[in-house]
């Protein structure tokens, strides 16, 4: 930096506080504090009251009484439904993330290798479906997968099957729905990473006699690992808590923790158990969230 030139970074203390304060306080109050409240209420007991849980502490006659109950967590342990739901959510999320990666990587790569306006056009076509309603895209699959839906009609008329196969309300439908809805979220960060790949590296490798497979394994894949991680986390983490897809496309045997939490809250009105379910889910997702944060923050922060 040359002498006598003011730099644009706000280094001087006290000048930037207003710019920092507004988003900081908003996120603190509406994003960070609510988690503390979830943890707090997960330690309360369910009660028939408004709101439906007991107070954690009482201050009567100068005596502070604390009532912390681990009953909700013990309850989660006692019923195998919860453990199975967590396990099955993680399994479904991991499998569908892998499928998204297998489908999304070639697409991201193909778009990143293109030149000019064609590139931004294709990129927009990838994102466009995610701008329409999430619900409506799942609804489209309800129509396609039904016993008398298009897929079964085509299979029947081609003579592949003799009677309609059950597709809707199965785990297969859940996988299709997840991959369909979350694919763009994997392609975007991967594309952003692959587009920065220096073509000269690939040319050098070609000159040194590397074939397409060797080029991919030794250059493209290792260099795009950051984008792969970001894209996978962008799919995996929200899918673990997904509610709408298993509710509309899955069957009664499709067990996912987001559905369990919804049921505890809206059907059983057991807020403390719902909070305990949410707390455990957050703990399970902590490492994936930190992994995502590390990549995303580096992408967003000032890089010099």
């Amino acid at each position, binding site marked *: 930096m040359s002498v006598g030139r003011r730099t644009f970074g706000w280094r001087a203390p006290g000048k930037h506080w207003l710019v920092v304060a507004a988003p900081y306080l908003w996120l603190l109050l509406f994003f960070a504090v609510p988690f503390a409240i979830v943890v707090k209420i997960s330690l309360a007991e369910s009660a028939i009251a408004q709101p439906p849980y007991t107070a954690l502490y009482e201050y009567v006659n100068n005596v502070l009484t604390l009532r912390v109950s681990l009953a909700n967590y013990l309850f989660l342990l006692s019923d195998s439904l919860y453990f199975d739901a967590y396990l099955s959510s993680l399994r479904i999320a991991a499998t569908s993330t892998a499928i998204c990666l297998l489908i999304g990587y070639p697409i991201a790569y193909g778009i990143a290798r293109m030149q000019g306006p064609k590139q*931004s056009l294709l990129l927009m*076509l990838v994102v466009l479906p995610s701008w329409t309603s999430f619900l409506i895209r799942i609804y489209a699959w309800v129509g396609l997968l039904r016993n008398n839906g298009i897929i079964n009609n085509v299979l029947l008329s081609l003579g592949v099957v003799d009677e309609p196969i059950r597709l809707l309300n199965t785990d297969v439908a859940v996988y299709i729905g997840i991959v369909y809805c979350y694919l763009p979220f994997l392609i975007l960060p991967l594309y952003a990473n692959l587009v920065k790949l220096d073509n000269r590296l690939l040319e050098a490798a070609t000159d040194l006699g590397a074939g397409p497979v060797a080029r991919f394994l030794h250059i493209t894949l290792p260099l795009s690992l950051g984008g792969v991680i970001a894209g996978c986390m962008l799919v995996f983490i*929200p899918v673990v808590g997904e509610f709408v897809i298993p509710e509309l496309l899955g069957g009664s045997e499709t067990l996912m923790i987001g559905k369990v939490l919804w049921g505890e809250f809206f059907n059983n009105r057991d807020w403390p158990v719902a909070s305990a379910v949410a707390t455990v889910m957050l703990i399970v997702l902590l490492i994936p969230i930190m992994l995502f944060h590390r990549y995303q923050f580096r992408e967003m922060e000032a890089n010099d």
Partner: protein
Amino acid sequence: MSQSLGTPLFTRISLLLGFFFLYAPMVVLIAYSFNASERVNIWAGFSTRWYGELFRDEAMMAALWMSLKLAFATATGSIILGTLAALVLTRVRNFRGKLLFGGMVTAPLVMPEVITGLSLLLLFVGMGSAFGWPAERGFLTIWIAHVTFCMAFVTVVVSSRLRELDKSLEEAAMDLGASRLGTFFYITLPIIAPALVSGWLLAFTLSLDDLVIASFVAGPSSTTLPMIVFSSVRMGLSPQINALATLLILAVSLGAVLAYWLSLRDERTRRVEMQVLHEKR
């Protein structure tokens, strides 16, 4: 040279299949919105009767109006907070609590909706009983919840543009005596305007689409469009939803064409920017 490394056959085929997978369900959805038959799966000739029924459905129209107002307010709120957050990330070096700030900006992007919804509801209930505010849940509480998760997406869009922006333009303005605020409004803001437009549109669509978070924090009197769509899809297929979907896809496609045009123009501006800088050097 780059031709030999261009798009191999395998990549072309995956692109083709990928786009077929993404678009075929929507094409079917649109086709069946013009179906005369009550039964969604049987084709009985072309008709626009479902569009008429859609517009006569008062509950649906009221929810649509509510959702549009909400999305407008959300997009506007999150563009302000999201741009401030992006400025903090890209322009303020180090301050106490930046680590926490970074976490709070990136985590909403991936946080499962059921957790965000539940935690915000518990906050509103807690605040309501402690301070008497918010007295009841409705438009305002949904707006707060939507701004909170939408601003993170705006921050991603705006900060990536701010990072690419040539800082020497801002420095030049300040060398010439402009204040920080003046520099922001006369130099930075016009340059990042296209990113603000796409951030605004993104927040608008995210808010318009949200079912889960709104279901947690809404009051009994505030019904948004996704809630109506969700409950009617739960009952079974309805041709009216096909008509609604078609109109939505049409609106989004128009918006996307606009955004594409803006981004092309932005790219051209960027190229001119770079050229001017090169000639100066």
